[in-house]
């Protein structure tokens, strides 16, 4: 069979399967992003807190999720959390089961890892904002919440954006690991095609190209966003 047939969308080809893999990869990354961002921001707040117990909790979080291999985190969530939940439900005398599917496991595991790194980016961005900004907002009579929303966040995002863009690109690549726990993403779909057709180089090469295209598209979007965000504020 020639290469165009193998990559076609017809019955004989693997194009449709690979395309669905792209959809899964992209939706997993997009679903993980908000979770990771919010969690990362909260952890960063914890790190900057004057309260030592909060700082410690936040640091334990980052130590664990930056220290474990992502693949292992994924297994721990996919199998471990499942077993733990099962035991808790059984202990409570319940009959139902709660399933963590591969997608959800990937989202939680990668989201936690993303949050651990993002909290560092946010924390660095926080310290880049001069203390005078808080004092100024306070002098204007803004509440803490409004200070955060109107004064600090807009500046924070501008400072944190390059770091976060980088984390997004890393996240896109790390979604490949969920193929190991059976989610039909790009790498799994191309892998099935590769071992079935024995055209490993063609299909794994295709997988690499697809990830490159995703990275390229992301960079275009991200640099547009960065331009917009930095155009919005005073040049420094």
């Amino acid at each position: 069979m020639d290469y165009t047939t193998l990559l076609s969308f017809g019955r004989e080809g693997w194009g449709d399967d690979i395309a669905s893999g792209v959809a899964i990869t992209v939706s997993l990354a997009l679903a993980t992003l908000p979770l990771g961002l919010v969690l990362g921001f909260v952890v960063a707040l914890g790190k900057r807190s004057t309260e030592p117990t909060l700082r410690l909790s936040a640091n334990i979080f980052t130590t664990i999720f930056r220290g474990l291999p992502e693949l292992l985190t994924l297994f721990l969530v996919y199998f471990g959390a499942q077993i733990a939940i099962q035991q808790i439900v059984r202990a409570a005398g319940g009959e139902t089961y709660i399933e963590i599917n591969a997608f959800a496991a990937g989202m939680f595991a990668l989201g936690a890892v993303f949050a651990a790194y993002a909290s560092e980016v946010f924390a660095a961005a926080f310290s880049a904002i001069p203390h005078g900004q808080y004092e100024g907002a306070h002098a204007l009579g803004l509440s803490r919440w409004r200070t955060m929303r109107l004064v600090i966040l807009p500046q924070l995002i501008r400072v944190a954006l390059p770091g976060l863009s980088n984390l997004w690109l890393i996240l896109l690549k790390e979604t490949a690991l969920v193929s190991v726990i059976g989610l039909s993403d790009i790498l799994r779909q191309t892998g099935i095609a590769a071992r079935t057709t024995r055209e490993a180089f063609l299909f794994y090469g295709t997988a690499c190209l697809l990830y490159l295209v995703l990275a390229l598209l992301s960079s275009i979007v991200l640099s547009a966003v960065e331009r917009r965000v930095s155009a919005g504020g005073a040049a420094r």
Partner: protein
Amino acid sequence: MSEPPPAIGAPALSARGSDVVPPPPPARGWARARVTGIALLGLWALVGAGTLLFLLSSWNAELFARYAPRYLSGLLVTVQLVAISIVLGAVLSVPIALGRRSKSRIVATLSYAYVYFFRGTPLLAQTFLVYYGLGSFRPELQAVGLWGFFREAWYCAIFAFSLNTAAYQAEILRGAFESVGRGQWEAASALGLSRLQTVYKIILPQAAIVALRPYGNEIILMIKGSAIVAIITVYDLMGETRRAYSRTFDFQTYIWAALIYLSIVEMLRLGVDRIERRLTRHLRR
């Protein structure tokens, strides 16, 4: 200017009037922060105690005697793999970093493409591409006498990992050298230092401080990333873990692996911190 700025979406504040000064933030936020902090710490303690309890309750001396040596050999494989790849990658990263700054457009573009490819695709896909992908070119590789190398999963892993880390290290190197200002070069040449002397005495010491942390992170990333080699039949720490799990179906196998990985990474991080403190001791007062 005692009025708050445009009170869009904040009727509550403007209704209260501007003469009401909010209390200093720490006063009430503090107690709440403490409660949350203690609750979270309690949660972590619970997770820790749960893990410990799980390990204690499922403690099995026979299992430990059987698998502990295997974990150790797996750990050794992981360390070797990472050490060799990092060193080979470091050697390879020098020409790539120089290539990125080359005046020749072809060389610069090629180096850029190299870095972009290896940083833009997952290590797992690269490893598959090398191991299974090159496997489909066996006749061609045999013809040029390279098959003996790519036949072995171990060499394939080192090959893929070295190429990958070389791309990252090249960027670290470039960033570190670019962080040293032009003035340093100019001043050195004004003092009559040779190029080599300038690099060794002036530029490297300054670049090393900048590069240390990224290098440490890169090693940590490699240790974590190397957990995928089990998929191409190399029995590293993760491979031994998965093997033990597939035989025993005992989840503690994964918990042990997690503890080992965590302690290596933590030790490395502390090590980097110490070296950094030593290198930057002249900057502190």
